[in-house]
């Protein structure tokens, strides 16, 4: 489902290949890392708001690094995501700033307030 969505989103074959590789890396993670990584990845796809294909690939590639590292070091899952997994996922997505769905709306809000302010000055 998410994979289908991503295909409509990212045109390039190269990106599709990268995404497949990343998916495979996450699938190869030992438990409980696989389950945890899958859960956070799902949230990132739905709520991360990153829509630039290249940046998304960069994000998921770093994401796979993080979990492979955790599995290699035996870091507890909690040690990675902390007390608040949602908070963690959002901070993680935020790090890849500048290309989010919401950016257009943010720009629009700023513009509208600027327009309103200009009305005040007349």
């Amino acid at each position, binding site marked *: 489902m998410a994979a289908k969505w991503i295909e409509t989103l990212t045109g390039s074959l190269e990106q599709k290949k990268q995404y497949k590789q990343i998916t495979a890396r996450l699938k190869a993670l030992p438990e409980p890392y696989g389950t945890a990584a899958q859960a956070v990845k799902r949230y990132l796809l739905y709520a991360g708001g990153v829509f630039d294909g290249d940046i998304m690939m960069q994000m998921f590639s770093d994401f796979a*690094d993080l979990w*492979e*590292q955790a599995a*290699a070091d035996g870091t507890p899952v*909690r040690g990675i*995501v*902390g007390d608040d997994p949602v908070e963690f996922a959002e901070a993680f997505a935020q790090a890849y700033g500048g290309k989010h769905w919401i950016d257009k709306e943010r720009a629009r809000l700023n513009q509208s307030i600027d327009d309103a302010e200009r009305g005040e000055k007349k």
Partner: protein
Amino acid sequence: MGKQQTEMLKGILEGIVLAILARRPAYGYEITASLRDRGFTDTAEGTVYAILVRIEQKGLVDVEKVPSEKGPPRKVYTVNAAGTTSLDEFWQGWTFLADRVAQLRDDHARHTTDADTTDTHTTQEN
């Protein structure tokens, strides 16, 4: 660490991570360990990782990948010139805030002790 402290820390963690890195280049897990040694015991490794990703995206650090015996190559982070500038700004901001917040606290302390001396029979619980 309480919820309030966690919230407060969020705004300054990037500066703290830069300050730790300014001492010497380090791997991600070394930074988390250093934070824990300094009493930031609740900091999740993933949170630190997200900050490292962010400062890398902002171009505040230089990153070198070093092959590792286990797991993927590990990244060594070094603060560069832009990072040093950003850290200087962080210290300025921190000093500004800390001074004013301390001022408020002192005012509050004075106010409550004044209340102690004027209001007999009221018990102040701090």
